[in-house]
């Protein structure tokens, strides 16, 4: 596992305020969120100020309906940890068109807010251009189904934040551009993010992967989501903390 990213994190002075004593109340606005995907995850020993965005379910949609597959692997976290429940949406063969089908899907997504100690909800859907009207409707329905004041977050392809403006009026509190696994556009997109070109909706957070070179300066005030292609273990988190203390 390479930790080149951690040098970036240190450079961005992101972690300095968050490495400290744990067992403090959940920060309402953690600066660092760890994405915990579908594998057994033990994050009991997180530094304070670090939250967890965990895959709560995967919804596979078709033109007619959707199937929700909930998380199969355990996630262990301290009760004080700030939690975001993530729903991954897969649409291999079209998306629902009927309003009631979209609303039913929204209800399933909003239901993840009821999981213990979940503070916010995030949707991870790499929608194609033709699927955007449905996605827009879905976001409105999820927003309506969530208790007032619940933060709603969405991930975004980097290109959504650079070359069009369909994100501008979506009913979300946070857009997380995923600046990793971008293939040949990686350097270009990162460079543009660094040189202030991202859409306003995308300026509050950024998603990076531990196994890729940072290549981008994470500005103070941005929330950093970290993806780890390997397992999060107490040792991994400890190593990360040690790195950022340097």
């Amino acid at each position, binding site marked *: 596992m390479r930790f080149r990213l951690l040098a970036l994190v240190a450079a961005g002075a992101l972690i300095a305020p968050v490495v400290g004593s744990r067992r403090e109340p959940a920060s309402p606005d953690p600066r660092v969120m760890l994405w915990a995907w579908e594998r057994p995850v033990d994050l009991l020993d997180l530094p304070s100020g670090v939250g967890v965005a965990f895959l709560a379910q995967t919804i596979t949609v078709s033109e007619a309906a959707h199937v929700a*597959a909930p998380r199969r692997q355990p996630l262990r976290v301290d009760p004080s940890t700030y939690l975001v429940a993530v729903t991954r949406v897969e649409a291999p063969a079209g998306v629902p068109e009927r309003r009631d089908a979209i609303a039913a899907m929204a209800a399933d997504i909003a239901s993840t807010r009821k999981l213990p100690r979940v503070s916010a909800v995030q949707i991870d859907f*790499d929608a*194609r251009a033709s699927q955007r009207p449905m996605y827009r409707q879905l976001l409105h329905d999820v927003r309506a189904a969530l208790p007032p004041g619940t933060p709603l977050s969405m991930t975004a392809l980097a290109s959504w934040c650079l070359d069009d*403006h369909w994100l501008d009026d979506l009913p979300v509190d946070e857009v997380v551009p995923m600046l990793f696994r971008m293939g040949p556009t990686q350097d270009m997109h990162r460079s543009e993010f660094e040189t202030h070109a991202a859409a306003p909706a995308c300026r509050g957070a950024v998603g990076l992967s531990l196994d890729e070179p940072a290549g981008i300066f994470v500005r103070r005030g941005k929330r950093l989501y970290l993806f780890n292609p*390997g397992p999060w273990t107490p040792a991994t988190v400890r190593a990360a903390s040690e790195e950022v203390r340097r």
Partner: protein
Amino acid sequence: MKQLPFIVFFAVVSVLACGPYISEVLPVETVRPADLTAYNERGELGVVRPQFARRYLVQAYRRMTGREALPAVGRFGPEIDENATDARKQWSEAHARFAGVAPPPIQTERNIGDYQWITNCLGNAFASAAQTLNERAARYGAGSSQVREWIEAQDRVFQNCREENLALPDPPSASADSTARADRQYQMASAYFYAMRYDEAVQRFRAIAADQTSPWQHYGRYLAGRARLRQATTAKELDRARLAEAETELQLVLKDASARSLHASTRGLLDRIALTAAPADRLRLLSAELGSAAAPTDQALTDYERLMDAAVGDTTTYEYDKIPNRAALAATDMNDWILVMQGSGSAAGQRALTQWKQTSSVPWLAAALWKATPDSPEAPALLQAAERIERPSPAFYTIAFLRVRLLTLRGRNDEARTALAALSAPDAETVNLLTALRFKLARSMDELLAAAPRLPVSNRDIGWTYIDERKLTTDPIFDDDAGVVFNERLPLARLVEASKSGSLPARLRMRVASAAFVRALMLKRYEEARAIAPILGKLSPSVAADMRRYEAATGPDDSHLAGLRVLLRTPGLRAAVKGIEDDADQGEKELSRTFDHLFRRNWWCGFDKGEFDRSDATSQILRLAYHDGDVPYPAFLSAEEIAATKAEWAALTAVGTAPNYLAGESVKWARARPTDLNAAEALARAVEGTRWGCKDKATTAASRTAFQTLHKLFPKSEWAARTKYWY
């Protein structure tokens, strides 16, 4: 004078709206063989690599030790349980037929804490319910009260699949016969089971097992065992006492001849208990079975992979020294071998040698050859043993590849060439691997060029995108060994020679000629550029006219400006020769005359970064064919040529990124020839290049200067009118 406003920037293009969707075109796969059908079904191994996923190494071990191929290697469990879907449908149809309505919605998943769900109600529960309902309808009559009550009770049972609160069926009516009463006892026990009240469920299932009159009697003990197993494995920590109870209960089922129909399923549950209770023991048994049994089950392979993933992580690369409980994991020869193959570090190499010396077996010979270093004292013995492996051994191509590789590492290149000359490969991937060795051993430019192109064997989706199935083209490609050599290990004169030669396929020749032309211009070696110009004109007719103008230029100054003009008009003139390409690269049959807005691969980024960085490359070839991934200078280069290569590289590195260089040169051109309208065109194109090319901190200043020069010296030109912004 103005900079492009943000708002305009966002409105300009939406071409990247989603995706882009591209895939790398590979000559050698990464963690699996390219030809899965041959490998999995016929056991034709090709060259077995250390970083293969474990299931492919299982196949390799079996074949190298004389076992039959294991087709299960090619079968992965279905992502969707089709049987469960069918069973739900059967239940819905039976319910609708006899109750007149569809069943209430049933959620089969249940949260067991720690944000984890299990499938609480499996498909066979619905199939069994549908079958029972049909039988009771036949017995009592479709519209009978017994059937109606049975359906109501069953709906209550399935309510427990998801809901937290226990939902129990009503007791049987006073007039119910013994079958209806037995059915209700079974439904009550099932309700407790799905409600995760396992102690109560076990008690009730045992009572059913003791009831000689119940049609459910032979299910009783089996379900009591399942309840204990579920109880043990859904506890916060594994409950070993309950697991032991489950095993006892299920062993009794195996002794019960009347429960014969459940024996296969019971054995599966006992396997699962063994896997859960004593994973190391189970792993030993499974690896022994997979390594030597005539026909191991698919489940054995699945369980083996699961246990190995838990033991060493779901990765194919790890440090051998740091494998926890390595001795226990390596209890069978096959597993020992797999850990050594995948593990890194000198201890893995030492273990391979030790085992090879002890066993003289083919798999250990392969492992020892993979781990051998050039100065290994055992290398001569390994090479002798390798020479004795002949067709039709399934290990033949693996050992032959490794023998040649080790010979090259030890400098015995003539022997390596002789061995290679006798080899012909059965599949494209093996062809590519052997060709890579020929490339490495090339004694002349002709041999190098003959061995540079490879056959595409795989498309690999990259980027954060969906995977689109694409047709694999047959258009030859380079691998990263060619990328390194053409970019960093050959002087310009050799690139010119390669461009003139007809050995390379046209598209690849165009790539090399493009790099040679750009480098010749940057190094101000205009005669060499002039030699390449007609070649590029022929390979890419769209640039032919500009190339002819370049050829006609005389003297260094005119040649320089003519070269700049071609460059500025042809953003597809790249300075780098890419190794692994994606399908967008592969689709470019001509040098692009327009800017690439999508990937922004225009000209070059700079010789000290960008396209020359292979730290995240997918290519396997540098690791497989070279020691420590280090590609040396071709053997036929003279010391002077190597020195020239290094000097040229240093000079090219100093040039920096293309947009800055071209903007700067265009400004010089305009200032030197302020009435030359070609300079106006150059400035305009240079400014546009600062938008779409590779940028750094100096780009904006370069863009602004070129923009200002254009508008100051050529204010009324069409080029000034077309250039409204700097970037």
